[in-house]
């Protein structure tokens, strides 16, 4: 009963807002529709509508998936300081990190879905309905880990908001253990995703034990980079209180994470270059090109340069506190990690292929459009959930709210596990 009313009111809240807000929603829906039409095309013609071929059988879609798993895992960069170290300024915004995790997971699932040759058989992957090849296949592990993490975050976010909506303190004996479990769960989703690549002996570019640590380190940069920008938007557009200290602390953690990421990259470069076995060919393809095949070279270097300069911006306190350099750093990190953990990981791993053949992949317009649609849906989910969470936190949306009435502007009470 109460739950139904909660959902209805929350949705009503999500759909109402200023003209800019509604235009933003309309824009996202339009983009999703534009990409959705491309997906209809892909369904009609099959995966031949993409540029994926047997040599490069995973590409743009799975690259985005991999990047977004990192974004989802990065919610813990807020949870650890908030709940393990009990650091108040971040605690107040931790729920927004969990919402980001939820949205990123929605995008992850969409990207896997659109990569399937037989999306009608998607249910074969679902635990209980299909036949998961568990524990043999790492993809089966990933299905379990991602779904588990999704449910965990959904329960935490939903429960916290529902309690706050009902103006009652939540049961911390229920929530805190769940939040603490979400820390190893976040690490595990990214580790398992790394193992999907890592486990393949046929692909030496991925078959390096450093891969999972590198995944984690880069995830600790990319997710927070998105959050920092969103937090500043909320600071400007709502009464939701986000302290600058929280932003600076997150930027500081990102600097350390980026250092680890660059260090691990350096370790890998050393091993490849010094031993210089035949496996270096993939590495060379990414950074130097192979003969006339050099489509990735500019991206490979862009990624390294972006990550390196973002690290420098964030390690110096003055530049990570200045709004301009802070946002520039976020953008550089986003670009750097998007390339590194997306196509910069997937494509060189498959080029040249197991027979030594080189197929230079570049996404088709269909693939890009479908990718845009997946991102739009994810942003839509994030926008709607954040709108609801902020309204509830500020006391604008409670069970006493009369629809249609102007919000009562009570004292803001952020949603935290701090009641």
């Amino acid at each position, binding site marked *: 009963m109460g739950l139904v009313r909660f959902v209805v009111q929350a949705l009503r809240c999500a759909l109402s807002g200023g003209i800019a807000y509604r235009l933003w929603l309309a824009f996202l829906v339009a983009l999703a529709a534009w990409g959705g039409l491309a997906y209809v095309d892909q369904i009609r013609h099959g995966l031949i509508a993409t540029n994926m071929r047997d040599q490069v059988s995973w590409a743009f879609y799975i690259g985005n998936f991999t990047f977004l798993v990192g974004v989802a895992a990065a919610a813990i960069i807020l949870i650890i300081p908030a709940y393990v170290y009990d650091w108040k300024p971040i605690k107040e915004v931790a729920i927004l990190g969990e919402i980001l995790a939820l949205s990123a997971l929605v995008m992850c699932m969409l990207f896997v879905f659109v990569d399937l*040759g037989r999306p009608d058989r998607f249910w074969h992957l679902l635990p209980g309905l299909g036949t998961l090849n568990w524990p043999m296949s790492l993809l089966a592990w990933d299905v379990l880990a991602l779904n588990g993490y999704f449910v965990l975050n959904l329960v935490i976010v939903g429960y916290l908001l529902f309690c706050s909506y009902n103006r009652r303190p939540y049961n911390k004996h229920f929530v805190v253990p*769940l939040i603490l479990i979400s820390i190893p769960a976040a690490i595990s989703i990214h580790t398992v995703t790394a193992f999907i690549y890592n486990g393949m002996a046929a692909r030496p570019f991925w078959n390096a034990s450093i891969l999972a640590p590198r995944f984690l380190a880069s995830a600790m940069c990319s997710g927070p980079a998105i959050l920092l920008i969103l937090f500043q938007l909320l600071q400007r557009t709502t009464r939701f209180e986000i302290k600058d200290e929280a932003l600076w602390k997150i930027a500081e953690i990102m600097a350390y994470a980026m250092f680890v990421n660059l260090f691990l990259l350096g370790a890998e470069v050393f091993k490849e270059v010094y031993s210089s076995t035949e496996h270096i060919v993939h590495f060379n393809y990414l950074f130097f090109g192979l003969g006339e095949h050099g489509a990735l070279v500019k991206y490979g270097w862009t990624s390294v340069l972006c990550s390196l300069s973002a690290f420098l911006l964030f390690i110096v306190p003055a530049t990570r506190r200045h709004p301009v350099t802070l946002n520039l750093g976020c953008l550089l990190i986003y670009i750097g990690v998007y390339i590194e953990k997306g196509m910069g990981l997937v494509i060189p*791993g498959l080029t040249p292929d197991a027979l030594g053949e080189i197929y230079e992949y570049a996404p088709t317009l269909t693939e890009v459009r479908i990718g845009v649609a997946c991102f739009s849906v994810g942003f839509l989910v994030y926008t709607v959930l954040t709108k609801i969470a902020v309204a509830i936190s500020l006391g604008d949306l409670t069970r006493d709210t009369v629809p249609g009435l102007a919000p009562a502007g009570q004292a803001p009470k952020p949603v935290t596990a701090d009641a």
Partner: protein
Amino acid sequence: MTHDDTLSRRDILKKTFALGSGVFLCTFAVKAAKGESPDPTPAPKGAGDPTGSYKLPNGYEPSAHYYGYGIDLDKCIGCTRCVDACKTENSVSRTEPNFRTWVERYVIRDDDTLEVCSPKGGLDPYPAIEDPGSVAKSFFVPKMCAHCERSPCEQVCPVGATLKSPDGVVLIDKKYCIGCGYCIQACPYGCRYFDESTRTAGKCTLCYHRITRGLRPACAEICPTGARVFGDLREKDGPLAKFLREHRVQVLKPHMGTRPKLYYHNLDKEVR
């Protein structure tokens, strides 16, 4: 809230219990799912495609056989009739680059440069060799699925649609495959392809519909020089046992630990 009441012993116990029960439930769900289709017995629904549901002939006992394949590279003349026969026998697309077997031509020059080509798997004519005077050696290498004992493709399939039958043949249940493409990149030998007609993975079945009826695979049947030798490793006087006894053989990429059952005689070090 302080540290102490967040992490009381009671909380930790509760947490552990919650985690434990979660893991237990997951295992349970997986076990329940494993009891269902596809049938792990040797008659996978998709085998013997493209006709779809394929049944084992009466009296055929899969566990009594264990198939392997030998190729004598000295005898291969690059006629590629095997490629053609495979396409016809298994209705493999001739327009898409789908090959269950193909023949590569290697040209090694005096200065150790290597040229490998396989135009349309060998169905199109091989280009004329330029500057024949500088050729040190040249030879053909037919390729196909090695039906590995420890096949990575079977290992990685998320839904168990790839399976190894008791007679040692790696097969795809095309009615269960979701077309994720993971197996295609897991194969170190490039023997899998994405089949546009079914939108699933495709591969050599060792002509499972033929061999279970006592026939040879189409490629071995048609080979005019006897370079291709199909046989049952359990049959001590059979053609494959004889081939292995009389020739020094090698497999491709033995360091992968896949234990392939495709044995080459006179394999050059440049072949991968």
